[in-house]
């Protein structure tokens, strides 16, 4: 362990490898986001994520937006384990018939006031799965959607930027 600690100290900040331009973009979008979350949500915005039939790439990018490089949490956005703790519901994927009830129940379990965000092209218009026999429809045909984060999948930076752009008008 002493070896590890030594190397940690010598190494300094491990996020140094990222491109300076990206670091700048994260910081500028992030500080705006932090300001807006502080002002409009009293310091923290809690999000519950539900996958209704995505391929998993959107999940991977949402998880990436929480890694130490982007670290969405430092801007006041938390991903929570229960819909009971959530202000917003983040839905990925077209809505598979099997997930319809689960999606509605998750939404119903959230306290008011609440809003729905969709993430990724499939959630917006079912994307490649539009003509499937087993797809119920886009999320907006089931729940009132207030914000869409475009992309297939949206990059972590796009997630941060879209969130902060939206909160500006909120």
């Amino acid at each position, binding site marked *: 362990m002493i070896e590890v600690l030594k190397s940690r100290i010598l190494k300094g900040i491990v996020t140094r490898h990222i491109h300076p331009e990206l670091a700048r973009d994260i910081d500028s979008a992030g500080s705006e986001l932090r300001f807006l979350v502080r002002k409009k949500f009293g310091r923290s915005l809690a999000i519950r994520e539900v996958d209704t039939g995505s391929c998993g790439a959107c999940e991977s990018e949402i998880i990436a937006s929480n890694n130490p490089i982007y670290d969405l949490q430092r801007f006041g956005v938390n991903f929570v384990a229960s819909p009971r703790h959530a202000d917003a519901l983040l839905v990925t994927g077209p809505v598979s018939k099997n997930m319809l009830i689960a999606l509605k129940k998750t939404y119903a379990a959230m306290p008011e006031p609440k809003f729905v965000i969709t993430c990724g092209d499939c959630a917006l218009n079912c994307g490649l799965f539009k003509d*499937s026999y087993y797809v119920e429809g886009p999320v907006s045909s089931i729940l009132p959607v207030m914000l869409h984060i475009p992309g297939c999948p949206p990059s972590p930076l796009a997630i941060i930027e879209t969130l902060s752009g939206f909160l500006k008008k909120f």
Partner: protein
Amino acid sequence: MVGSEIISSIKRELPGFEALSIGEAYPDELTIRVRPQDFKDICLILHKNLASPVMLLFALDEREESGKFLLNCVFADLQNSRWITVSRDIQGESPEFDSLARNMYSASLFEREIWEMFGIKPKDNPDLRRLRLHDEVWPKGNYPLRKDFRKIPAGELSDYVFNRVEGEGIFEVPVGPVHAGIIGPGHFRFSVAGEPIINLEARLGFTHRGIEKLFEGKLCSEAVRLSESVSGDASFAHSLAFIQAQEKISGILIPKQAAYLRGIFLELERMYNHVNDIGGIALDAGFSFPSAYASIIKEAILQLNDRLTGDRYLRRVNAAGGVLTDIDEAGKKELRDSLKRIKQDFDELAKILNSSVSFMDRVDSTGVLKRKTAEDLGVSGLVARASGIPADLRKYFPGVYREANFEMITRQSGDVLARLNLRILEFAESCRLIEGFTARLKQGEKSMAASGIKGGSGLGYAEAWRGPVLYWLKINPDGLIARCKIADPSFLNWQGLAYAVLGNIIPDFPLCNKSFDLSYPGNDL
């Protein structure tokens, strides 16, 4: 002819056997068309002789052409680098066939799939519950993969019945489909006696999107995008398996440069997922520092992917005839430099994990999947190798990996530690392979061959990071896809998880689960 040995070995055990036809359209495929009454015996003989589980068992609806269904069972003959398909027809009216599941368990899930998707009944299969078309939302008697299926289902709904364990002090813990983390949906039903799990039933299919049906009637060039979205964390491997099936059928030979590039991208995909899982295993044991460190390494690989191809998940890279993105000299330097840093960081990550006694205590001998169980279930890929089964398509099939002296890694203990160590060793091997492939890239060399399209059928395959991804493809003469059967390793491996957790306590379930890290969308299709 190599095919004749197989036939004579069958004849030794089944005197008087005559194949209806034997097809050797490609060097790595042998197709034996048999009489319906011989089908079961021959499958069982091949299963035993080749020591191969059922790799694929699937039906085709050919009632428009011949009035019949077709049933294909694919085995892997790893020693001879080829796939052996046994094929029979099934009458179009009230179709059924003798179930293989009682003699060969790995056929079991495939038979359930055939029953729900085609309405072809596997006679004598003890479990015909549906996997993906949930009883609560999809009425009985609607078989989507039949050609005459209409989009609006009709009929009555019913309920799914879970296996029940009964006895004093036994209680059930239902979990999901919506989980606490940012992860796909699935329902787990634990039966526990005190702390230890005595039964786990995973009910999946929540992300079913009808992908196999969506492939039908599409041009191959359109369908590539669909294959990339079957399982988002294995986009490249899925598109590779699909494209290789198409290239095989159409007789397209890809340039050497493209083969190396595909090797590089396939290994990059393996690396970012392996490091992600290593971090996940650490996190699920409550060790958050290495987990954060692993996520930085994963991000570094994703950003490298982005710089090399313009996509973090290596999408829109594969195309029939080769790859759309070449790596030039600057790219090579970028790749080498990044890889060096990534490797350094990764070695440190492995060191941190190995030097923590309490972490090792959590993973050692947790979630053991015994070799015999793994073989019976037909478990494949990384999970199989961790249980001592030497199976890796990269080793047994010719191509750039053979050239690079790929070294297959196996472990014997089958526990979380074995799967963790396998990932650590495979990560290092992937780095070595990428260095080798990069050195062979030549500047200005073509990475794309001219491509045409022909009709026919064939099997495409790739060893993704989880295990073998198989695409059996049939293309009509007009270039439209008639049938695409997909098998992600997750499909059979989910059952491996259900056995590995037995006797473990529920708090260790996340750890076992992460050490398998199976795909929900890849399983649900």
